[in-house]
């Protein structure tokens, strides 16, 4: 571990990224305290607020647990076992990333109306967010030297005990990082819970905007959401602990011998099949149903193509800016210890649990005052994506940097290169595959983003998500289906690459 303080060439851009991520907090402070701290306090301390918080946390807990079970089991099956068609399953397991939560929720609700409420929200959110656990855990499993498991087996532990006592502890940092992203995703989700009619904190914030048109209570509630986020991030940091990084052994670890499943092959296949069917096949089938049963399915192909193009462009720019900002933060988080590095990483998470509308309004607030020329132009939308999704890219970057031993950077400096040059010639090229994975993931979530896109997009620009919103808003599901299908298919491309990606 490199000691001491990070050099300014890293710290400067990292602080810039942190400041951008903290913008919504500045806005929330202004709005929440508009009518004095007493009012904000009275909003926050009502019984209803406590209930909403309880409901949100309960949902987050349930979804995180379900995602851990689903994500870890699928990761183990696809990385470590002789499951038939293992490579195809590995790819299929990441495809749910491409499904927007509101599409999943809608699919489930229309098939099983009785699911509305807690159960339906938990099911829909689990099925779209478990890849956040699956991806890092699968990577960690691949990096686990099978010698550890063999040693445990030789010491008399059975396969289950070996998994619980040797493999699971090794997966803990990866699973905790993924679990955190899932928890924040659940806290900030509006699409699924509003369709499922389950009242959460974020829904409370939306209702506050929609019902009273009053931004002060909404801001006060958002501050509580930020505090919950900080708590969760701190919890995750503690779980991660002083993680040993980078296997520095001279040889590569032996590839593990796949575990034969024997009699368990059929149940394992059924498990994978059920997960993929529920998370991917089922929403796609629902879209097909929309198409077939809808009244008038006019395929406006030029418009569809133009919308897809605009979506790809905006999401690409969003992914690029987010990744660029995440790079210094991720490197500092991976390579330096101390208060500053810790605060910086936590700052990156600040906007992640906030509902899209709050982040969008924060950017409206600052943009009309200070950078009016880019207001309702693409650059501002791209900034919103960066604020919303910075943690996704930071997590990926940090993990990628941790993969390569810090001694390489020491050597490069001793050979006469300044820190910035070392970053460019050693750190970044080595971390590139992992950083690219983070960029791909960010790209997917940018494509699916709705609330901030609606408020901040350039006038006249439509993304697939806003189009989907427009069409479903008047119940034109047949017209909505092509947009949803194209959105899922386009987002499936980077998801597919992520599934094939080997760290």
């Amino acid at each position, binding site marked *: 571990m490199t000691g001491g303080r990070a050099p300014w060439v890293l710290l400067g851009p990292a602080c810039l990224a942190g400041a951008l991520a903290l913008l919504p907090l500045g806005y929330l402070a202004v709005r929440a305290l508009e009518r004095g701290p007493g009012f904000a306090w009275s909003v926050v301390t009502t019984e209803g607020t406590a209930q909403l918080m309880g409901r949100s946390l309960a949902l987050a807990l349930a979804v995180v647990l379900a995602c851990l079970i689903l994500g870890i089991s699928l990761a183990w099956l696809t990385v470590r076992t002789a499951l038939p068609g293992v490579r195809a399953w590995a790819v299929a397991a990441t495809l749910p990333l491409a499904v927007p939560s509101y599409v999943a929720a809608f699919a489930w609700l229309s098939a099983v109306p009785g699911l509305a409420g807690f159960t339906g929200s938990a099911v829909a959110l689990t099925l779209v967010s478990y890849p956040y656990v699956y991806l890092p855990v699968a990577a960690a499993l691949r990096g686990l030297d099978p010698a550890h498991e063999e040693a445990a087996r030789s010491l008399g532990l059975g396969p289950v005990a070996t998994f619980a006592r040797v493999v699971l502890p090794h997966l803990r940092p990866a699973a905790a990082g993924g679990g955190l992203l899932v928890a924040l995703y659940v806290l900030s989700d509006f699409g699924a819970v509003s369709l499922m009619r389950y009242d959460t904190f974020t829904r409370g914030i939306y209702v506050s905007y929609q*019902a009273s048109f009053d931004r002060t209570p909404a801001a006060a509630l958002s501050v509580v959401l930020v505090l919950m986020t900080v708590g969760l991030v701190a919890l995750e940091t503690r779980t991660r602990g002083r993680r040993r990084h980078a296997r520095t052994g001279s040889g590569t670890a032996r590839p593990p011998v796949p575990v034969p499943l024997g009699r368990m092959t059929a149940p394992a296949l059924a498990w994978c099949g059920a997960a993929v069917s529920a998370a991917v096949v089922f929403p796609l089938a629902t879209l097909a149903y929309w198409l077939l049963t809808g009244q008038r399915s006019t395929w406006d192909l030029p418009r569809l193509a133009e919308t897809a193009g*605009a979506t790809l462009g905006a999401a690409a720019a969003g992914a690029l800016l987010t990744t660029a900002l995440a790079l210094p933060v991720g490197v500092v988080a991976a390579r330096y210890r101390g208060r500053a590095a810790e605060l910086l990483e936590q700052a990156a998470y600040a906007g992640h649990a906030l509902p899209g509308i709050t982040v969008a309004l924060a950017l409206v607030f600052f943009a009309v005052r200070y950078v009016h020329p880019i207001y309702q132009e693409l650059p501002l939308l791209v900034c919103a994506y960066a604020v919303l999704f910075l943690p996704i890219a930071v997590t990926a970057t940090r993990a990628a940097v941790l993969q390569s031993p810090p001694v390489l950077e020491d050597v490069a400096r001793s050979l006469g290169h300044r820190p910035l040059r070392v970053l460019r010639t050693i750190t970044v090229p080595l971390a590139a*595959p992992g950083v690219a994975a983070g960029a791909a993931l960010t790209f997917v979530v940018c494509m699916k983003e709705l609330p901030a896109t609606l408020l901040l997009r350039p006038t*006249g620009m439509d993304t697939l998500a806003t189009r989907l919103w*427009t069409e479903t808003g008047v119940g034109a599901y047949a017209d909505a289906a092509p947009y949803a299908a194209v959105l899922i298919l386009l987002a499936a491309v980077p998801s597919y690459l992520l599934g094939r990606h080997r760290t």
Partner: protein
Amino acid sequence: MRNPLRRFTSVLAVAALLTPLATACGGEDGDAGSDDAGIVVYSGRNEKLVQPLLDKLEKAVGTGVEVRYGGSAELAAQLLEEGDKTEADLFFSQDAGALGALAKEGRLDKLPEPVLGKVPAQFRGSGGDWVGVSGRVRVLAYNPDKVDKAPDSVRDLTKPEWKGKVGYAPTNASFQAFVTGMRVLDGEDATRKWLKGMKDNGVKAYDNNNAVLDAVDSGEVSVGLINHYYWYEKVAEKGADGVTAKLHFLPGGDPGALVNVAGVGLLKGSGQRDAALKAAEFLLSAEAQTYFSDETKEYPLAAGVTSKVPDLPPLESLKAPEIDLGKLESLQETLAMLQEAGMV
């Protein structure tokens, strides 16, 4: 180095760099560019519903027109956040509440009397700062195969004879506006009691008004609380024979017969006040009012225009409850009440 993800990222980079060019070239249709001295309309009404009408604005107003679509509530919040730096000249809202909120914050300009005068007083802002342009009536849809007729008041739906036979869409804004109206008319306690009675009577929740109407049509429920135009659209789509469900307009000023309006307001500080005013006038013109009546199956609100939709009773003939629509912005308490009743 031949990592497909890295290649993908390179593609992303190229795409991101080309995007400004692409959006610059691709956005040529309709909007004449933001530098033109055109007006900007924030529309909380769905693009699918009003775009054909707004496309005609440019000609009517004589300048370029840019329209931003979004949710009415979100756009209201955005307008409040933008304050006097807003580029919006006109706000076209789905409901009165969002307009009332902007009026309360002093963000709307008072409309001239000739414009206000086109619409009955109950369908415009009490301060004269917004005006309704189209109306939608809460009605009961019923399935004549299941019941002879629907009750004459929503208050009757808590009776045992309707147990398990009623459908509604509790998250729908119009339904919530209706509950708010009931609170104004009948008082808090009576409304709370009614909601509890509905819940106890096994009222079935659906996702939206279309789903409620479908359920009535199929006989899944006998009666459903919806807005009138969903039925007329369904008839327009499937033909009169294709729809089993019938509509019942509630008489006698029943809270269940509330009329919601969509309306417009002029933003203060608009540099294009005259053009924006012309746009508002256009929305109250015979052409636009006919559009609402024919295309969205809503009620025209401007005097002198009547709907040509067959079977649609004229607005004047309906006994809508007497409510100040501006008061419908106090939705917060309604939601609290719905939550208390376990409905949302």
